[in-house]
């Protein structure tokens, strides 16, 4: 607790106390905004390298030192200096404001994601619901942005995004219900602590599969990238974005990729738990990046699904599996099969 300064002489010690406080460090540096921006920059470079390796290409090479590691910075500088073109009769405040709202929505859930026993900004008792609440606002924001662009391709992309995320949100929720049953809490730190003896991917493997597939659909990643299908919709809901607006949208999308990877790590992969030779946050980041890798890989491997198949899989397969898994989890808990692991 830092007391407010009462005299001018107290101002400098007050500022030093604030800047060196745990709360400030967690919000600004780790696991806050600077860490997120660095990871997002890394992910943009990493995705290109992984896809290049899959397709027997080299990938970024020239910007910076080994492997074109400074390519994200080169991209950022280029996009910042490009002109932002607002389409004719577009709703300018929404067109320019919604991308910032998307970054806000992608960043805010990290406040409740525990990167270590003491590395969480806000240890909310309803952390899981908070994360779902924030991510479920994405489709509406995307549709508003698409509408504000005043162009048919973004609007069709926005509608597809809405349908897709609505179809896959419910299986995602229901599959997370198994984790709530196992941990008995919505607090993400409690969920991680409940996995000290066994990661929840073992007793809730079906949940993991459903959650992983639904996450890919929520992230609009191949084979679920219908909202931005290039041959049909140019670039989908962000077709009309350019320059800094495009950059901010991509920042939000990659933050969401990292968010979903982190959430999978928390719910199924034991969060920060790992052998003691590495600090807890390092284990957490390594696991999240491993999950992100498995989300990225299908982009270089699988073709895009048809729209009707996409919706059909969500409602008629994943939802049924998720519901069946709730019954299975109740059965496992009731019969005491998992009691050896303290569950």
């Amino acid at each position, binding site marked *: 607790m830092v007391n407010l300064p009462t005299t001018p002489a107290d101002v400098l010690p007050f500022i030093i106390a604030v800047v060196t406080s745990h709360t400030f460090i967690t919000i600004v540096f780790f696991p806050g905004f600077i860490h997120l921006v660095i990871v997002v920059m890394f992910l943009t470079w990493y995705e290109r390298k992984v896809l290049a390796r899959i397709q027997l290409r080299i990938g970024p090479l020239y910007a910076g030192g080994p492997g074109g590691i400074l390519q994200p910075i080169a991209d950022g500088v280029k996009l910042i200096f490009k002109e932002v073109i607002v389409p004719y009769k577009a709703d300018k405040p929404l067109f320019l404001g919604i991308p910032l709202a998307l970054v806000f929505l992608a960043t805010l859930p990290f406040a409740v994601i525990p990167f270590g026993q003491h590395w969480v900004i806000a240890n909310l008792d309803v952390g899981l619901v908070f994360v779902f609440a924030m991510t479920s606002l994405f489709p509406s924001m995307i549709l508003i942005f698409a509408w504000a662009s005043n162009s048919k391709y973004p609007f069709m992309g926005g509608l597809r995004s809405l349908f897709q995320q*609505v179809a896959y949100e419910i299986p995602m929720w229901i599959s997370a219900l198994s984790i709530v049953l196992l941990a*008995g809490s919505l607090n993400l730190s409690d969920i991680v602590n409940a996995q000290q003896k066994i990661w929840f991917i073992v007793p809730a493997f079906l949940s993991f599969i459903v959650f992983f597939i639904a996450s890919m659909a929520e992230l609009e990643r191949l084979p679920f990238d219908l909202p931005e299908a290039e041959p049909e919709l140019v670039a989908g809901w962000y077709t009309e974005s350019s320059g800094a607006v495009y950059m901010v949208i991509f920042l939000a999308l990659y933050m969401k990729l990292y968010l979903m990877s982190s959430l999978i790590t928390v719910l199924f992969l034991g969060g920060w738990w790992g052998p003691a030779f590495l600090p807890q946050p390092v284990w957490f980041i390594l696991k999240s990046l491993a999950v992100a890798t498995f989300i990225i890989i299908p982009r270089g491997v699988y073709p895009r699904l048809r729209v009707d198949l996409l919706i059909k899989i969500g409602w008629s397969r994943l939802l049924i599996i998720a*519901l069946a898994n709730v019954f299975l989890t*109740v059965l496992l*808990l009731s019969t005491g099969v998992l009691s050896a692991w303290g569950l």
Partner: protein
Amino acid sequence: MFVVFDVVGMFLFAWGISFREIPYDDSLLVLLFLFLLGAPLAYALRMALRRENW
């Protein structure tokens, strides 16, 4: 269906937290409710599959 499952989902989460504290009989009621919820879902899926209209 989205609205139904979205609203029901919230109640299920509340049940999920208190699953260990409440008697199994009470949980059976929730499971029965969940099972009954499957009936309109099955009907909707049947209609959609029949028309191949998603």
